[in-house]
């Protein structure tokens, strides 16, 4: 088991390194000169050269890369070309917002998927089950941003119950923080919930056919009790796997939802940085996102090894 975990760790590290090179190269070849964008119209050639030197983008790419990686490894992401601020703290700040959004979206998705998925499975031969299945099909087809726009129209513009966007830090005002999080979390979570409902349904359907449920019922448990005591735990294993995979999709969805709800998260930071050719910031954000995705995969892998006895001997 230890060998397998070590091997996975090595793969994780190498992937991260490879990703950093890809991220660096792709941002470096983006058309447009960051110095020119920072200086704006009428920049003189001397000023351009001076600014390029100040940014360090007149040096060879390899030097720039090594310098950047050296900094990142010690937690220093450099200074933004545009805001002239340290990128690291800003990244942490924005990551916090995105994590809240993704976490809340995940929670909404699970709260939708488990009851409806189980319902659709248990009643798969009845009308109510078919309705749930059809609804989840519809939910999958709705993009998160559309869900967001509709929610804003109804709950913010028409009813004025909730804010149409903006962010309040939880420490500053927890009530306002939650009010602001509801609509973004719903627009992100409803779509994910619809996807997840289908997995829960098929997973529960599989479990319903298992022998141990029949045994449980023959001991005198009601069908519902049997499912809750013995079935759901087993049905959860594949669902958790899917949940892990969905996390990356949620991150992408969060980028769009941040735009709709004007949330100062990583996604909106990335869009701003790309249009301003703030390359160092772009590199930092993309690296954090890629590292996040790789980390999720790595953790899922390791968890399997720990949880699944069959894998313990494997390499």
């Amino acid at each position: 088991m230890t060998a397998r975990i070590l091997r996975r760790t090595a793969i994780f590290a190498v992937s991260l390194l490879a990703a950093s090179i890809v991220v660096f190269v792709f941002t470096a070849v983006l058309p447009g000169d960051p110095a020119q964008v920072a200086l704006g119209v009428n920049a003189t050639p001397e000023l351009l050269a001076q600014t390029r030197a100040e940014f360090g983008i007149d040096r060879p790419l390899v030097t720039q890369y090594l310098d950047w990686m050296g900094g990142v490894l010690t937690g220093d992401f450099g200074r933004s070309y545009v805001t002239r601020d340290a990128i690291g703290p800003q990244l942490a700040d924005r990551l916090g917002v995105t994590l809240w959004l993704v976490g809340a979206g995940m929670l909404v998705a699970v709260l939708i998927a488990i009851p409806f998925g189980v319902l659709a499975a248990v009643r798969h031969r009845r009308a109510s089950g078919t309705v749930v299945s059809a609804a989840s099909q519809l939910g999958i087809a709705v993009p998160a941003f559309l869900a967001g726009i509709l929610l804003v129209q109804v709950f913010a513009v028409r009813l004025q119950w909730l804010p149409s966007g903006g962010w309040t830090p939880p420490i500053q005002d927890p009530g306002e923080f939650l009010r602001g999080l509801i609509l973004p979390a719903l627009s992100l979570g409803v779509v994910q919930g619809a996807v997840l409902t289908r997995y829960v349904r098929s997973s529960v359907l599989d479990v319903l056919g298992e022998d141990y449920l029949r045994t449980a019922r023959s001991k005198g448990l009601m069908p519902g009790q049997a499912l809750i005591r013995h079935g759901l735990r087993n049905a959860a294993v594949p669902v958790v796997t899917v949940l892990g995979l969905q996390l990356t999709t949620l991150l992408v969805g969060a980028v769009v939802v941040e735009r709709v709800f004007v949330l100062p998260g990583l996604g909106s930071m990335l869009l701003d940085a790309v249009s301003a050719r703030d390359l160092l910031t772009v590199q930092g954000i993309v690296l954090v996102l890629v590292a996040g995705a790789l980390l999720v995969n790595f953790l899922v892998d390791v968890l399997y090894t720990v949880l699944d006895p069959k894998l313990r001997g494997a390499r």
Partner: protein
Amino acid sequence: MKARLLAAALALLLVASGCSAGSSAFVPDDGSTLAVGFAAEPQNFDFTRTDGAAIPQALLYNVYEGLVKLDDQGRVVPLLADSWTVSPDRLVYDFALKPGVLFSNGTEFTAEDVRFSINRVKTDWTISIKSKMDVVDRVEVLDPLHARVVLTKPSNAWLFDMASRVGAMFTPTGIEDLANKPVGTGPYEVTSRRRGDSIVLQANRRYRGPEPTYRTVYLKYYKDPTALNNALLSNGIDVIGTITAPDSIPQFEADSRFNVVQGTTNSEVVLAFNNKKEPLNDVRVRRALTLAIDRKALLATAWAGRGTLIGSMVPPTDPWYEDLSGAYPHDPAQARALLAEAGKPQLNLRLRIPNLPYAISSAQVVQSQLAEVGVTVTIEPLDFPAVWLKQVFTDHDYDLSIIQHVEARDITTFGRPSFYWGYDSKKAQDLLARADRGTPEEQVTAMREVARTLSDDAAADWLFLFPNVVAAKKKVTGIVRNQVSESFDLTTLGRSE
């Protein structure tokens, strides 16, 4: 183990979101607080080293003040200077300063600060508009409340420019961290900011004048025009600084909760011709293209008919404005005749535009109307600002382009042959020089002549002037109709009970 993991994750989140300074989506609904929504966010607070309109929009006249300011008619009026005199040779400006003015860090404002601020533009500023101070020879301190500025040559533009960000007054004790901590003499100071969300201004306790009506002002930023509109509709903000989606204006006009104010700006949307390059170096071709485009129809498509038609690079708030919009009436037949005369009955032109909504919708109209006179236009949207700046603006690699020119009195760019217009006219250059050094009356006459010359030469096609459309809750009064300065001036705002 699961519970512990969850607890750790939550703790991490709290830490991550805790390190952010205050500011909020939530704006308290009391009488002394105002929230204004904008589309473009300042990248930092240092307009001496970072270009763009968003920083002066937020800070000028509100946090930073100059010796003079512009009123909404475009007139230069006193601000930190009580009055000034100009020598007969128009080289020496003597300013009498307001007494008892304090910076927000407590330092007193004196003539020394005038010298420091003006000199600093030449030495420390890195953005291109610093060249507006090139004409200054020296600044003398006559006494703490009198400053004298000596120019190398007479310049009308200089005093006008002093009302813009280059004229902002700084104190040597307040420039440590311009990007984060602005120190000015204005009625407000910056108390907090959240990137990607908002900036909070509070009334400056040391301000010389009466406390502003709104003690706290939230400047909130929305990249997406729909989100900006929704914020006003759902009471998230009180004012939309400038509406960027014209289709939404009727919605606010029809709603009794709001007032909509429409005025002009300095922002000309120009169809640029590459004057240096075949075939647009031929005035007949440029005139033909100008005749072929129905600007009224274009304005209807691109900005819901809300802008102003102008015929040269002059907005109605400049003293030398005259309506030249009728100089080239829409006349496809004459356009075809002119093109034939120039020996170019069939043309293929590249229209390279920034990927911005107004440019894209304008470009499509230009394309279809030029097609009617035998000109095939290929639209190439370029990533703005990065790619457009590099390829069109710097490398002059284009035939036609469409972009808004937002700077005040930027008609002077037609006096620079190296500018991306490629327009090289001795007559226009001489007139511009004469206008700058003459008396204000001579300036008006000469500038009017420049505008006519540009129109005559069809140096560009001025498609329309961007309107300034502000939507606000009924309680907010005193909104400036015309956007002529760089500032979103909060000092004029009041409250109706």
